[in-house]
Each structure stands twice: as structure tokens, then as C-alpha cells.
């Protein structure tokens, strides 16, 4: 503040240069509409030149791929044929006739055709029970889980495999297709829950040896690929047991898959256990409940409900992983497609694509609907915990 009055100086200089506008300002462009189709396009597709360029590039991509795809899958496709001859004609699309003719092979493998009602019944029972368990509105979940986790495996086994004197036995060598894929997935989920619960409790236990054994098992299984676990179940397991106890060819990968999924489920359940407020444990203990009573009545019901989305997610990856059992010679859905597409009666240039697209559709519908279910459930569960 060396000068006497700087404020006054500025004011006087401004006053000298004062400018008052005489004419009116030119009319501006009307504002960009904020509602309607054009506004939407402006906001979401052409917000800036760069965004507009991206839109154009995306449209070009779609225009390049989608018409050809539709032509291949629908317009040029062969919908009915006796054998592969029409499908081999140059320029034809997917050979859906092949899928139609081979459908029963894809679903049942080599299971005797006159007895497939047994497979159908088994799968239907499974579907009903799973639906009962997963749809939150339906009552008596406890009964449903007893039926699903205990009664259903036994009944399903008798139905599909046969029961002395009532139903003739069908060797597991004949089992195949979607049936085996679903079987592996169902056994995996049924077995993985108890394994997962035990391992998760073990990992959170205060007993050092129990904890150590659980950690080693979980981390070992999670650290190796499923293929090696399947190899191990297939080649090493028969060596570890006395020869007369050698497990069935189909049973071995089932054991491998169960342990594998069990380890992943254990980590999911552990997350649920860790998320339980301490007060629940303390409250249970102050009521004088024993460890198992506390877990069974207080902790697990809450923790498991909390992690159902996680369990469904691990079931999705299990369902995708069932394709790997082909490596130990199990005839699952994908393997059935692999065999069928090489059938000389049908073999042709479009057959591989047709088979794979069909399989992809099957797996996609299953996995996508399960993931939507899990997202829904997550949102539903979050409602109760939202503050």
C-alpha cells in the first residue's frame, strides 16, 4: 500500500474507458433440445465429435457382423434334412437339421432309448427342487433342502442307475450328453456345500492343526487347474485305495469336481462368516449354546443366506467347468457334440459351427439366467442391510 489510494486510481481509469453498448446482441442459436429423440441422440450418441465417431464406428461394426450372422443362422440355414447332403451345398448356413436329428443323442448320450423316462424324471425332480430352493417366495425351505441334499441324490441314483429287482441297471458307460453335464453340476453343488462349510469353519477355527489342515487343502486346490485335479482323481485315486474298492469311471471325476468346488465354496462361505457381526457369536454364547448349536441355529443360517449370490456365482463357474470332464473320458454334452460333428453321415463345413453355436446357446442361457438371478438376489438381500 505504498500509493495513496489505489482504489480511486483504478476507478478513474475505468471511468475513462467506459463503454455502453448501443445496439442489441445478435440472436443466439436456440438451445439444444433436452427432451425427445433428437436430444437423446445428441446426449448419448453424438455428444462430441469423438463420441460421434465412436458411434459411427460401432454402427459400421454392427452392420458388418449382424446381417451376415442372421443370414448364416436363419435365412441360409437348413432347417430339415434326412442327412448331411443339403448342408454340404456351397453357401448354405447353419445345419439345424443336424441338431434336430441328434438332439436325443445330445441330451441322453447312449442311454437306452426305451428307458430315457428315468433320466427325464430324475432331471425333472432336480429342476423342481432347485426351483423350490431358489425362488424366495416358496415356503418350507428346510424341507426342500433336506429333500434336495439328502433324498434327491439317493432317489436320483436309484432312478438313473437302477435298483436291484425293480429297475434294470444302466451302466455309467452309456450315460452321456446334457444329462451327464447336469449330473456333474448337481453332484458338484450338492457335495460342495457340506465340504465348503466344514472347510470354512475349519479355517476360522481356533485349533491350530484344524486351521492348518483346512488352509492347506483350500489353497492347494485353488492353486491348481481343475484339469490336474481331474487327472489326479482319474489316475491317482484308483492307486490310493485297495483294488476291490476302485471307484467307478464316472464317480472319479465327480469326487474331483466336488473337492474342487468345495474349496471355492469354502472361501465364499468364509466371507459370509467374516461378515457376521461379533454380537451374533457373543449373543449365542451367552445363551449357553454349544459351538455346533451356535453354528447350526444362529450363525450359518444368516451367513449362508448372505452368500447365496456368491454360491450361485461359483455354481455358474462349476457349470462351465463341467465341460472339462471330457479330458478323463466322460461323455458330457460338449463331448457329444464333438463326436456327433464328425459323424460321416452329417460331416460338412458348417457342422462344427452349428454344433458349437447350439452348445454355446445352451450354456449361455443357463449361465446368464443364473447370473441374473444372483444379481436380483443380491439386490434383494441388500435391501435389508441398507441404512
Amino acid at each position, binding site marked *: 500500500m505504498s500509493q495513496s489510494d489505489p482504489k480511486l486510481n483504478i476507478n478513474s481509469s475505468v471511468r475513462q474507458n467506459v463503454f455502453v453498448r448501443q445496439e442489441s446482441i445478435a440472436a443466439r*442459436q436456440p438451445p439444444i433440445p433436452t427432451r425427445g429423440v433428437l436430444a437423446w441422440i445428441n446426449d448419448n450418441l453424438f455428444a462430441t465429435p469423438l*463420441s460421434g465417431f465412436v*458411434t*459411427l464406428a460401432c454402427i459400421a461394426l454392427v452392420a458388418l457382423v449382424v446381417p451376415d450372422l442372421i443370414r448364416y443362422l436363419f435365412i441360409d440355414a437348413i432347417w430339415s434334412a434326412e442327412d448331411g447332403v443339403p448342408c454340404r451345398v456351397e453357401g448354405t448356413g447353419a445345419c439345424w437339421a443336424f441338431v434336430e436329428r441328434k438332439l436325443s443323442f445330445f441330451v441322453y448320450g447312449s442311454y437306452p432309448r426305451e428307458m430315457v423316462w428315468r433320466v427325464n424324471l430324475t432331471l425333472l425332480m432336480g429342476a423342481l427342487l432347485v426351483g423350490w430352493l431358489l425362488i424366495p417366495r416358496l415356503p418350507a425351505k428346510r424341507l426342500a433342502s433336506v429333500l434336495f441334499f439328502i433324498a434327491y441324490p439317493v432317489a436320483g441314483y436309484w432312478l438313473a442307475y437302477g435298483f436291484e429287482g425293480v429297475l434294470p441297471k444302466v451302466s455309467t458307460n452309456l450315460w452321456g450328453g446334457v444329462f451327464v453335464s447336469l449330473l456333474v453340476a448337481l453332484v458338484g453343488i450338492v457335495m460342495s456345500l457340506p465340504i465348503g462349510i466344514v472347510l470354512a469353519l475349519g479355517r476360522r477355527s481356533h485349533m491350530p492343526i484344524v486351521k492348518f489342515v483346512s488352509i492347506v487343502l483350500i489353497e492347494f486346490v485353488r492353486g491348481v487347474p481343475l484339469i490336474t485335479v481331474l*487327472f489326479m482323481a482319474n489316475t491317482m485315486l484308483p492307486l490310493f485305495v485297495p483294488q476291490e474298492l476302485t471307484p467307478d469311471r464316472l464317480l472319479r471325476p465327480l469326487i474331483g469336481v466336488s473337492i474342487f468346488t468345495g474349496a471355492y465354496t469354502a472361501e465364499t462361505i468364509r466371507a459370509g462368516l467374516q461378515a457376521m457381526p461379533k454380537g451374533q457369536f457373543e449373543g449365542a454364547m451367552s445363551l449357553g449354546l454349544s459351538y455346533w448349536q451356535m453354528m447350526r441355529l444362529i450363525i450359518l443360517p444368516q451367513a449362508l443366506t448372505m452368500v447365496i449370490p456368491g454360491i450361485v456365482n461359483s455354481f455358474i463357474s462349476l457349470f462351465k467347468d463341467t*465341460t472339462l470332464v471330457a479330458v478323463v473320458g466322460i461323455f458330457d454334452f*460338449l463331448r457329444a457334440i464333438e463326436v456327433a460333428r464328425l459323424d460321416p453321415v452329417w460331416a460338412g463345413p458348417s457342422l462344427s459351427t452349428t454344433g458349437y453355436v447350439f452348445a454355446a446357446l445352451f450354456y449361455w442361457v443357463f449361465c446368464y439366467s443364473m447370473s441374473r438371478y444372483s444379481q436380483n438376489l443380491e439386490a434383494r438381500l441388500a435391501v435389508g442391510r441398507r441404512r
Partner: protein
Amino acid sequence: MSDHKLTHRPHIAWWNDPFYRGLVYQLVLLCVLLVLVYEAASNASQNMRARGIPTDFGFWFKTSGFDINLTLIDYGAASSTYGRAFWVGLLNTLLVAGISIPIATLIGFFIGIARLSANWLMARLAGVYVESLRNIPLLLQLLFWYNAVLKPLPNPRDSLVMPGVQITQPDLSTTIIASLMVLAGGLLLRRSRAMQGTGTLLGNVFGSVLIGLAILFWLFGGALLGLANVGLLHLSGSMGVFLNNRGLILPEINLVGGALELSIASLIGLGAAFVYRAIARERQRQTGKQQAVALIMLAIIIGVPLITFGFLDSHVTIAYAELRGFNFAGGVRVSPEFAALIFGLSTYTASFIAEVVRGGILAVPQGQNEASAALGLRRGLALKLVIIPQAMRVIIPPLTNQYLNLIKNSSLAVFVGFPDLVQVFAGTVLNQTGAAVQVISITMAVYLVVSLFTSLIMDLYNRRMALVDR
């Protein structure tokens, strides 16, 4: 609980004392485990002896006698051992992982960010990518790429040929035309920036067409400029790139002489570029002026070895593949097994990485977005400077899991016949020697070690990232 000590323990029977109970439980568990292990071991040795399976690791030093079609180290069926085959398989697995992980990361980040884009169409397409790929089994995708896409390609005689450009000498008129095209591209891009200022729908549409044209001009002009100046490609009609059911065949480029000098020059260039970056950053810190870092770094990294090359008495030879009889001779071949595996693994894992990235970006508080917009940062810069660095802390742990999954999933190579660790060792070696227990234990141990090692590295990186937190 430990706040107040009881002055005297209430008298309880020892079998009701949790400490002794735990001890008993653990002893029982230990005994059961020991019995199980002992039973398994004695059964195994009995069964193995009964079936004539080797029980030791002697097979490791025996001659393998089978061929492997991709070997990174010297290997011959007649001269090499099973142990050598193991190393070949392991290196192939690591090769697949090493190539797929960066590709998957790039695609994954791109798709993950695209899914959150303000551009509706791009966000939808990214969503379609993620939801379709991650809900279809990887094995199915691999088989599709291999059996339905790569295998039905024509045989070598009818290969798809990538068309080449016929330029014999560095050509002045082509150079001028190409330079003009690049220049025109730049002008068009400038013009499109100006269109952004109009803020109208029509202006933006027009601007986006301009960008498209600019990119076309740059691509064609740049490629033409490069070809015209290098003048290397004096081929009639083909660049020596062929695609057929034996794979992708590329010309083999070899450096004759001067390898040592060039690698030293490259290292010096790399070092100089980073020194330059440090200087530029320091200057920016002091003066506040932004320095052109990326372009100059690129120029240094490419320029130093290029100038050195000019002074050296060495040259580059290009061996083009030629069709001899039923197959190609010369050149480098990328086998369809390898291509299918890399492509399938990368695109599949990318769909998971995209979700991880999306989650990470969404976890950054909205205020950070708004603040960077208030500072005048464009969306790209905001992502690069503000959002992604913070999102990385959330992203890294699940990203590590995806890398581990990719490494484990590379074992699916066995289904398309690519010689990775599982196919070579747990497949062929196991079948030939029958040493199931040893072979599978070694294979599992390798994956365990790789998993643990990767977790360790990512953990270290994660710790470095976390330290930035204030």
C-alpha cells in the same frame, strides 16, 4: 473378555475344558489323517508294484522318444529326456501366459472403460461382449476358434494371401502424396475440434465424419509413407503373409551382424528416454509448462537404435515363405493351436477383467469425476490422471485372481493339442511312463509355485500402489 481376570478358575472337569477338548479333537484329526495317508501310501506302492508302474523319479532321465512341435529350447525325440520334455512344456505354458496376460489386460481395460462410456452404443456393445463371452465355457470357445474357424481355412496351396504393395525404390511422388494425406488428416482433425465448439447435433455429426476421414487419411497416408521410404517391399503381389489351415505364415526377419551393438543402443535409447522424462517432469514442476514427453520419448527410443544401425556394417535379411509342394518352406509359422489358445484365453479372460475394471472405476467416489470435470479435464485425461490411479487399488487384487485363472486355464491347451505343460507332461509323459503319482504331483507343484509367485509379485505391486494413499 481379557479385561478382567477371574481370580480363580471355576472348577470344571478337564473333559469340559475347551483347551483339553481342542487338544483331543486335534489329536483325533491328526491320527485320522496319518492313518489315511499311511493307507493311501501303502495301497499306492502295492498297486503300483502290482501293475509294474515305476515308483521313483528314474524316468526323469530316460530318453523321451516323442516329438513336440513347439520348443523354445533345444529338444529332440531321440536325444532328449522326459525331464527336458517337462521344461519344454513348462516354457510353453509360460509363453502362452506371458502373451495372453498383456492382451487380456488391454482388451479388458478397454471394454471395462467402454462399458461405462457416455456413448450409449459403445456401452451396449461392450456389455454384449462381456455378457456373451463370460457365460460360455472357455473350452467351448477354444474348440470353436480351433475347429470351426482356424481349421476350415484353406490348405496351403489355396492360402489366403495378404496383398502387398509394389514399391521398388524410395519413391518421391508417393512420398509427397502420402505426406499430403497425413497433413490433410491433421487439418481435418483440427476442423473437427472446431466443430465441437458449435455444440449442435449437426456440428457434432459433421465433426465425427471429419474424424473418421482424418483417421482414414492417416492410416493410408502413414502406411504409404512408411513403405515408400523403407522401400524394402519389392514383392510381386504379396507381402509374404499367408493364412491357411497350418497357421499364419509370416516372413522371417533376421539381423545379420551388429546384434550386440544394436541391443546396447536400444538400452541406451531406453535409458535416455527415461532420463528425458525425468528432466521434463522436473521442468514442468518448476515452470508449470507442459512438455511434449510421449512423442520425444518415442523418438529417442526408436531413433537411437535406428541411427546406430545406419553407422553399422550390418543389414536385415527378410526370408519370405515359399510354397514347396504341399507346404510352405521358410518364414515363421504361428500354429493354429497356438493362435486359438492365445485368442480364446485372452478374449475370455478380458471379459472378466472388464468387470473388475468397471467395478474399480465405479468404486471411485463420484466427487472425483465432478472435481476433474470442474478442473476442465477431458474425460480421457480425467480417467488417466484421476480415476484410474485411484481405481487401481480396488482393481489389483481381483485382477491378480484373473491372471492366476488365466494361467490355470492355459491348461485347456490339452484340448486343442497345444504342447503346454499338461499336454506334454501330464499327458504324453504320463501315458508313456505310467508314473501317475510322480507326474501329477510335479505338475500340480508347478502350478502351485506359479500361483504363489504371481500372488507375491502382485502383492508387492499392490503394496507400492497402496503406499500412495494419503
